[in-house]
């Protein structure tokens, strides 16, 4: 490439991105090639596509719009328990769908806590079922993630900027205009695209909260094509529609994202002198409280349902715990091996990040079927159940990890690459001495998210499992299928505890080790 040592090499990242894209597309092609019949898209499919796009767009919009004030409140306030709150807020995102739905409906359902409260106040009950219910559930899942990612944007504004703003006498309004709004213009579109992509493949949540077949999403149409009609061609076609929509949203986000940044600071601790009026304090406190209540109430419902069963869980649940922890560990390592090089490459070439989004865009059902078709001729898919699950979980966590890692990687490369080149440091040295220590908080956050996501994801294990290697989410489904709802609730609480602990360990580890 060039003479002398280069501080950043893009080829490992490009190779990793190509590998991710290749796995996804190979799975899709494998399904398409097995197609026998193959009907085109009918009127029902188009209405499913319209509903999917509508609910995903609304979900992304509301998640981001609500996350901005919450993140701002968290960014300019410090209070005891703030760290713990931020960790707990991550929990909805990592819950298995069935557990989260039951928790949500305990609070918002017909016989839920909210309606009980309304009844006490003499007000008529509200119905959660409908488009608003779907959006509410998706906001519940994604608001915490959006808040964390946007909060990270706030933390990346150098402390010197706030200091300068304070010296110049800038109030909250000026700080919003000069510092915060430009930061949001760079971060928010990417976050919205990510949430849009997650919600595109939603199925059980959309159907249950949507109240019936009106809320048919593309993923449900894929299910129908696969199970009901065994029409692999149509499954693959619909999966392709999901990919196109995701990539279109990502491209749009990339296009409207503002460029540039705040430049380098001196890594001081951020101190804020603005927003000290009582009114603003009350506003922020109210926002934080409201968000915490909205997100923690369903978690409390899950905890309350799980406690009676938690103490006498069947031993198989503990075995499943071990399997899940093992899968999560492997998956997290895999994720970091993929995400770090891709993030570095994306620091130079923003488009590379899009490959990561494929992990979210490809329908889990089609991905599972495709991998099955690919593996079956060469090896027993059942022997590979756990490695495949770990890989797929890593791929699903990849887009989140890239959103977390890429902005920081870009900043570090911009800031230190020239100096490193002058010092003839070389790519490995730059990675080890500059990037790794400076990106530890982001790496910890990404690893924690991957570990927790992998722990909670049913993923492809359901397609590949053999009886002995059930993960914890699969074991929860098995308990439910055997009518053992109390034990299932206990196991779900255990899963919640495990996921949050894994997340907390990685996240804290990263932050504490930060220089």
């Amino acid at each position, binding site marked *: 490439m060039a003479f002398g040592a280069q501080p950043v090499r893009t080829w490992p990242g490009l190779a990793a991105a190509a*590998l991710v894209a290749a796995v996804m597309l190979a799975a899709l092609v494998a399904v398409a090639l*097995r197609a026998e019949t193959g009907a085109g898209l009918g009127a*029902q499919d188009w209405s499913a596509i319209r509903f999917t796009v509508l609910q995903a767009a609304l979900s992304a919009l509301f998640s981001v719009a609500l996350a901005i004030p919450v993140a701002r409140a968290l960014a300019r306030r410090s209070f005891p328990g703030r760290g713990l709150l931020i960790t707990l807020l991550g929990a909805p995102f990592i819950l298995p769908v*069935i557990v989260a*739905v*039951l928790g949500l*409906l305990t609070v918002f*359902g*017909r*016989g839920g806590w909210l309606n009980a409260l309304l009844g006490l106040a003499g007000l008529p009950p509200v119905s959660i*079922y409908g488009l608003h219910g779907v959006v509410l559930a998706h906001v519940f899942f994604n608001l915490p993630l959006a808040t964390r990612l946007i909060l990270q944007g706030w933390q990346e504004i150098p402390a010197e900027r706030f200091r300068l703003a304070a010296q110049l006498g800038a109030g909250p309004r000026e700080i919003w205009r000069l510092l915060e709004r430009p930061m949001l213009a760079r971060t928010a579109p990417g976050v919205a695209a990510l949430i849009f992509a997650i919600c595109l493949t939603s*199925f*059980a949540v959309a*159907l*249950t*909260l949507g*109240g*019936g*077949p*009106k809320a048919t999403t593309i993923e*449900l149409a894929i*299910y*129908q094509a696969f*199970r*009901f009609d*065994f029409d692999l061609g149509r499954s693959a076609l619909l999966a392709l529609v999901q990919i196109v929509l995701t990539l279109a949203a990502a491209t749009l986000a990339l296009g409207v994202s503002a460029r540039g940044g705040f430049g380098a600071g001196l890594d001081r601790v951020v101190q804020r002198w603005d927003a000290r009026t009582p009114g603003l304090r009350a506003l922020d406190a109210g926002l934080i409280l409201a968000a915490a209540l909205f997100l923690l109430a369903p978690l409390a419902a899950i905890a309350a349902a799980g406690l009676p069963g938690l103490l006498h869980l*069947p031993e*198989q649940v503990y075995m499943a715990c071990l399997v899940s922890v093992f899968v999560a560990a*492997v998956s997290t390592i*895999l994720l970091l*091996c993929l995400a770090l090089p891709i993030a570095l490459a994306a620091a130079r070439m923003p488009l590379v990040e899009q490959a990561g989004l494929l992990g979210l865009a490809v329908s889990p059902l089609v991905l599972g*079927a495709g991998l*099955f*078709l690919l593996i*079956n001729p060469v090896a*027993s898919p*059942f*022997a*590979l159940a*756990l*490695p*495949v699950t*770990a*890989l797929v979980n890593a791929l699903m966590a990849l887009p989140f990890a890239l959103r977390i890692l890429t902005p920081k990687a870009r900043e570090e490369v911009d800031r230190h690459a020239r100096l490193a080149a002058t010092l003839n440091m070389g790519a490995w040295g730059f990675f080890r001495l500059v990037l790794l220590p400076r990106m530890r908080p982001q790496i910890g956050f990404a690893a924690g998210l991957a570990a927790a996501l992998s722990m909670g994801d049913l993923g492809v294990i*359901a*397609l590949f*499992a*053999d*009886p002995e290697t*059930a993960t914890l989410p699969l*074991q929860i*489904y*098995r*308990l*439910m*299928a*055997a*009518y053992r*709802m109390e034990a*299932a609730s206990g196991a779900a609480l255990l899963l919640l505890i495990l996921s949050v602990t894994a997340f907390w360990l990685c996240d804290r580890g990263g932050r504490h080790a930060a220089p």
Partner: protein
Amino acid sequence: MKHLTFAAGVLCATGAFAQTPELTVYTYDSFVSDWGPGPQIEKAFEATCGCDLKFVTAGDGAALMARIRLEGERTGADVVLGLDTNLTAAARATNLFAPSGVEADYALPIEWSDDTFVPYDWGYFAFVHNTKLEHVPQDFLELARSDLKIIIQDPRSSTPGLGLLLWVKAAYGDQAEQVWKDLADNIVTVTKGWSEAYGLFLEGEADMVLSYTTSPAYHVIAESDTTKEAAAFDEGHYMQIEVAARLASSKQPELAQQFLQFITTDAFQSVIPTTNWMYPAVMPEGGLPEGFNDLVEPRNSLLIPEAEAEAVRDTALAEWLSALSQ
């Protein structure tokens, strides 16, 4: 992919090589869970066959069928256990299955004379409710007129959901769409699978949930809880008969046939009621366990013949979608 191969190597290295013949049975997930019939049945069959019975799982019945079709003639299955009467037509059409050679004295409410598929259990779909519910409806029309709230499953992703679709169609024929329109305001929501629906019902989200007439038996036997009951509907109840069959491509045809015969014996059938919570296909010597005797007995059994099921299913789904999407 390096990591994948490595991890696979580690996993495979721990597996021992079996000397005894191996019989691979594909089944749905809940059958082999520690709370399902799988473990006891494996033990009982291995005690007589001198073989290693290996269960392999795939989601539910429809996922199982999709798996077999994906694998085609190269399937590793010797026996498939867990298809139901809604899937047998599609299964037969693949020509992947061989005649069972099994004859037995079945305790089914209908005549069974299929040379390929061996029934191993059966049940009726029904709406389950709490015993304290007043004015329990006697049929779909009364349910539709009432203010009662029900939770059902989506026929596109769930076996009971499909069962209900065919139940209404079998009972009402051309009027089915109107019945669904009248039922629309009773339906709280439609879930992806049985577990979500039943979980929501237990949480008090609805008055009734689509399940089986045998569901209350679980609560009585396992939890000594007598507060759950299934409503008997005058139209009759739609049946689900679960079946097993052996693959023509099996390299262990004798063993596979031996297993199919084993299905009709006491050792298999006596395990079914309190693990799979369905009626046994052949009445075991000891009869039904306590708790099964008080269940509602439908006046007549509905089942759409296999040959018509597929066409009826497609019409019924279109009606269901149009009635509930308004």
